[in-house]
């Protein structure tokens, strides 16, 4: 070792060998890289006249594919400095011996002669100059450094290096070299120096340089202050000019560097009182100084009120109260209440709810805002509707309000608002609608109010009673008299669900069957599918059971689908098939609906393909293949005036097809609702991508293929399979990935290939799975891994995404699953 810290050829061979054998390698390096490394090292040596270990590390990294570059740096460093972090060396390197022989043979057979030529050049350079003292000096300097690293100027110089490995890489072997390099690094940072940089710069005697070169007034002033120069005039100028942000940064830097003593700094901070004019500036001062300086609260709030919106000001006040212990929100709200007349409209209920605090001032302002909203609603043409909307808004805001006290205060206003809304009813229909609406959203109007208003509006006592008591008796009556629709009955059942027992359900079933009330039967079925079928069977035998099943379509399809996955085990075998048929039809229908609503067209734009045909009228002129056209005309021996439009040849265009292979994890915890969403998503894709190449499988320990790319499937058949799938077993992903790979390899013809895998990434067989991912990447398959947000192994999921060159996405709401998949497909194609 002399000019070169390692023999470049031997280094390159060793480097590639270790890279190839490393378990984290993403793109296996090619043999050509082994030549590129010594070539570049030699080139750099000829250009600079010297070569450092850092050059070796950098070149090893640069000649590696981007995904491998971090690993390449570590491996190169370990080869050059095997003792630097000996204990950290990966145990897997032990396996390299095994690969070594095979790799040597490969090198020898492929590129030995070019390596020999490079080696001759290296030998020639080494023979001319040999300076064995370089490394001895390096070692000695590092010994000195390790003893004096906490003394000046070593300590300050080292501040500009990330770690000691940078010194190794740059072959810094003397204090002079260290100081020179530290100076260079600090020069690069001027105009973005932090307080610690300034302190280190001062210790290295670089104050003058900073003051000359920096554009930033706070860097200059702080450097002066650290150097005990007078900053009096500079500070006066800053205050006089009112350059608030510069002033704040300067005070921050002066504080953090300790350049001024506490008293002097406090004096300067006290002057800020006249400078802080609004909440923005106060926030900036507090954020930078770590505390709120003295400020004129009255002036700050007064100014802010006119300058920015309520939400803007409140957010600032909130941050300041929360982090710096001020009481600005209260003062701000009081000021708003005081000056309400100045503003045409008070802050909205929404804004106030978002910014709720447990203070009287907030209550007062909220009250004002509510009054204003009521007044506006009562001025509307349909005041009953407007009041209903307002009540619902207040109800929703009450539920979403984060502050318990405010939420309670809001809740206290609801009964009055409900009453006002009922009063706004102009006829019995409006009153009924309002009462039902309120019950539906969980607000129960007072019976006395309903009674009084009902009488005022001329309703019969019976009508009023139904409105007042939505109880079992009422439900029974409605079912018996065949008067209510599915939605109304379902709402009623929901309201009294805790009171309902088995006998009552049985009684309701009997009544509904007797009165042939299909809406009532559907409502009972959607409440608890399994129990409802059993009860119908008990009450009226097979005929009743069939009647119930045939009524189920009255309710929402999605709910029935969920009911199926939740209760399917409880459904008696005699009717299971029939219910399944029904749910299947719903699943198919919903899949088609989702596909139309979310996936859009299944076809991408026209793409030229390598087939030409004669021009026909209407073809795009941009698609004329001039070369083929000219050739065609020449071959035909036509003269110019004999050329006709069909002598022109155009590229054939094809609608761009896409290949999507999807693997969905159904292991362990995939319960009813999740399976329902997966099934929905699957049918959506099967319909939406029916013209594309699509394959779908579910997997746990085994892989269940629902559709291969080249398989024509009937939606019906797949829906049937989907409804029978159950969650079970552990997660074995390799077989699913292998299946996906074979689908792409054997059956896919499209250029765009996308693999989507859904899993919680708690995987039993990660290592073999990684091999599959590498192959998928090599096949140019786009890879997306989706994991449920609350429960997945982030590390393994990230590793999988990285190795496949793909993307990791998370899912936080199961209802969003079909939408997320649709979004991915829309983005990717």
């Amino acid at each position, binding site marked *: 070792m002399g000019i070169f810290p390692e023999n470049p050829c031997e280094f390159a061979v060793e480097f590639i060998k270790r890279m190839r054998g490393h378990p984290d390698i993403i793109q296996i390096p090619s043999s050509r890289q082994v030549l590129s490394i010594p070539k570049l090292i030699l080139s750099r040596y000829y250009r600079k006249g010297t070569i450092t270990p850092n050059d070796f590390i950098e070149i090893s990294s640069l000649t590696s594919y981007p995904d491998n570059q971090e690993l390449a740096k570590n491996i190169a460093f370990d080869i050059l400095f095997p003792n630097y972090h000996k204990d950290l060396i990966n145990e897997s390197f032990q396996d390299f011996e095994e690969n070594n022989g095979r790799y040597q043979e490969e090198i020898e057979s492929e590129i030995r002669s070019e390596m020999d030529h490079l080696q001759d050049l290296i030998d020639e350079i080494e023979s001319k100059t040999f300076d064995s003292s370089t490394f001895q000096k390096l070692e000695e300097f590092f010994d000195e450094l390790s003893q004096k690293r906490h003394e000046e100027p070593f300590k300050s110089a080292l501040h500009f290096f990330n770690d000691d490995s940078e010194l190794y890489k740059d072959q810094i072997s003397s204090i002079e070299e260290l100081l020179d390099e530290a100076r260079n690094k600090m020069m690069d940072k001027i105009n973005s120096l932090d307080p610690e940089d300034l302190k280190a710069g001062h210790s290295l005697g670089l104050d003058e340089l900073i003051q000359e070169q920096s554009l*930033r007034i706070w860097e200059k002033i702080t450097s002066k202050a650290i150097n005990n120069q007078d900053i009096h005039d500079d500070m006066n100028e800053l205050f006089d000019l009112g350059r608030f942000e510069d002033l704040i940064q300067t005070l921050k830097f002066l504080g953090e560097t300790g350049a001024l003593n506490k008293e002097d700094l406090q004096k300067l901070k006290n002057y800020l009182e006249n400078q802080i004019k609004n909440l923005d500036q106060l926030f900036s001062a507090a954020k930078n100084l770590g505390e709120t300086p003295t400020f004129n609260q009255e002036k700050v709030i007064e100014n802010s009120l006119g300058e920015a919106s309520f939400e803007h000001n409140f957010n600032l006040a909130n941050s300041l109260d929360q982090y710096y212990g001020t009481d600005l929100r209260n003062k701000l709200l009081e000021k708003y209440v005081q000056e309400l007349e100045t503003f045409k409209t008070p802050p909205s209920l929404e804004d106030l709810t978002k910014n709720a605090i447990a203070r009287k001032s907030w209550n007062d302002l909220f009250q004002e805002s509510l009054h204003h909203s009521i007044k506006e609603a009562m001025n509307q043409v349909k005041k009953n509707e407007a009041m209903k909307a307002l009540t619902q808004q207040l109800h929703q805001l009450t539920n979403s309000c984060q502050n318990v006290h405010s939420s309670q205060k809001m809740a206290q206003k609801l009964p009055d608002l409900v009453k006002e809304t009922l009063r706004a009813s102009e006829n019995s229909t409006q009153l009924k609608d309002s009462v039902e609406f309120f019950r539906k959203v969980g607000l129960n109007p007072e019976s006395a109010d309903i009674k009084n208003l009902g009488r005022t509006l001329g309703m019969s006592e019976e009508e009023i009673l139904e409105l007042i008591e939505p109880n079992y008796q009422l439900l029974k009556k409605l079912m018996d008299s065949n008067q209510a629709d599915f939605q109304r009955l379902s709402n009623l059942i929901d309201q009294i669900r805790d009171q309902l027992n088995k006998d009552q359900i049985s009684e309701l079933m009997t009544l509904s069957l007797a009165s042939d009330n299909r809406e009532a039967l559907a409502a009972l079925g959607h409440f608890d599918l399994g129990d409802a079928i059993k009860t119908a069977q008990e009450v009226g035998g097979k005929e009743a059971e069939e009647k119930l099943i045939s009524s189920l379509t009255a309710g929402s399809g999605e709910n029935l689908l969920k009911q199926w996955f939740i209760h399917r085990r409880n459904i008696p075998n005699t009717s299971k098939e029939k219910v399944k048929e029904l749910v299947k039809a719903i699943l198919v229908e919903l899949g088609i609906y989702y596909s139309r609503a979310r996936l859009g067209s299944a076809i991408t734009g026209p793409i030229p393909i390598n087939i030409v045909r004669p021009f026909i009228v209407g073809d795009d002129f941009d698609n004329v293949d001039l070369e083929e056209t000219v050739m065609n005309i020449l071959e035909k021996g036509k003269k110019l005036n004999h050329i006709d439009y069909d002598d022109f040849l155009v590229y054939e265009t094809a609608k761009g097809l896409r290949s999507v292979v999807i693997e969905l994890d159904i292991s362990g915890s995939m319960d009813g609702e999740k399976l329902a969403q997966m099934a929905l998503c699957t049918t959506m894709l099967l319909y939406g991508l029916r013209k594309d190449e699509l394959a779908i499988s579910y997997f746990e320990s085994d892989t269940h293929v629902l559709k291969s790319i080249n398989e024509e499937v009937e939606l019906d058949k797949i829906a049937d399979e989907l409804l029978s799938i159950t969650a079970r077993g552990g997660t074995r992903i390799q077989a699913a990935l292998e299946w996906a790979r074979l689908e792409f390899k054997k059956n896919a013809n499209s250029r765009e290939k996308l693999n989507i895998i859904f899993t919680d990434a708690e995987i039993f067989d990660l290592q073999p799975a990684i091999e599959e991912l590498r192959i998928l990447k090599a096949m140019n398959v786009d890879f997306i891994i989706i994991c449920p947000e609350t429960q997945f192994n982030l590390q393994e999921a990230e590793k999988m995404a990285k190795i496949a060159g793909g993307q990791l996405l998370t899912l936080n709401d199961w209802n969003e699953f079909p939408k997320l998949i649709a979004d991915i497909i829309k983005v990717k194609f």
Partner: protein
Amino acid sequence: MRDKEKFKELFNQALVKDVFEEEINIVLSGQYGKALELLRDAESTGLYPALVGPPGVGKTILCRYFASIRAKESQYSHSFHWLTMDESIKPSHFLGSFDPAITLNKGFVLDAFNPGPLLSAMLEGGTFLANEINRATEYSQNTLLEPLEEASISIPHLGRIKAHEDFFFISAMNPEELSGTHRLSEALKDRIKIWIKLTYPDKSTELDIIRINLPEHFTIEESELELIYSIINETRKNTVDIEVPASIRAGIAMAKLLGRKRYLEREHDNKEKESIYVHLSDIVKTVLLGSIKPKPGVKVQDIINRIINKILGA
């Protein structure tokens, strides 16, 4: 006719005859200085490099600057050709094509051939940049295999040419994980020997880039620049919600918009400057809306609101 004359005059005024005549505003500190050195190393060893980095980190400008240096230093390689790829790029866009009118008269002869940028660069010994190379289809990528491996290329009907010894090829691309890109074919990967990663530059370099891109009359305070950088940097820290964070261009755009607002305030002699926080809240909403790409399922507006809340307090 008069319009045609005017067009000719303007065209000739604006024509860049040689790449080194063009003034290129570039900051060469930090990663850019290193990348330039590496391009020089690559050139001297005949190894073809690729610049890899997210949109807006300065890959193209660096290549133009490198080409201009080559042009100044070499007696041959004055030319710089570049082609930005997408799916519609075909081999003839690289190589050139026959003029149908001349070909009909004279056949497939040299006179009838209009050379493309790659062929021109190969013959002139110039620099060719294949920009966004991983947006091209594999079919088009394959056109590059022969020039990169053998320094030659075959032109249909005319024959095969050897490239001038000064010919140099650079490619630039977005990282693979960004959507909308194809992968490089394994064959092409194997022929690109140096992979220069450019990422968002360090703070001091990025601030310098913003400074040199501000027109002289659009001055902003250093403290305002610091706030702009905090906002841009915040988008890069949030890798959970953001697929493509704000680029240097976004920082330049914010600084320019703020500079313009300040300029107008000065023009109208406004004694009271509007608060930086109010200005920046507006500017951030406008610029970031199109400058960041959220991950599927995340709303860009929510991200922007969070950033404004964190950095500007509101």
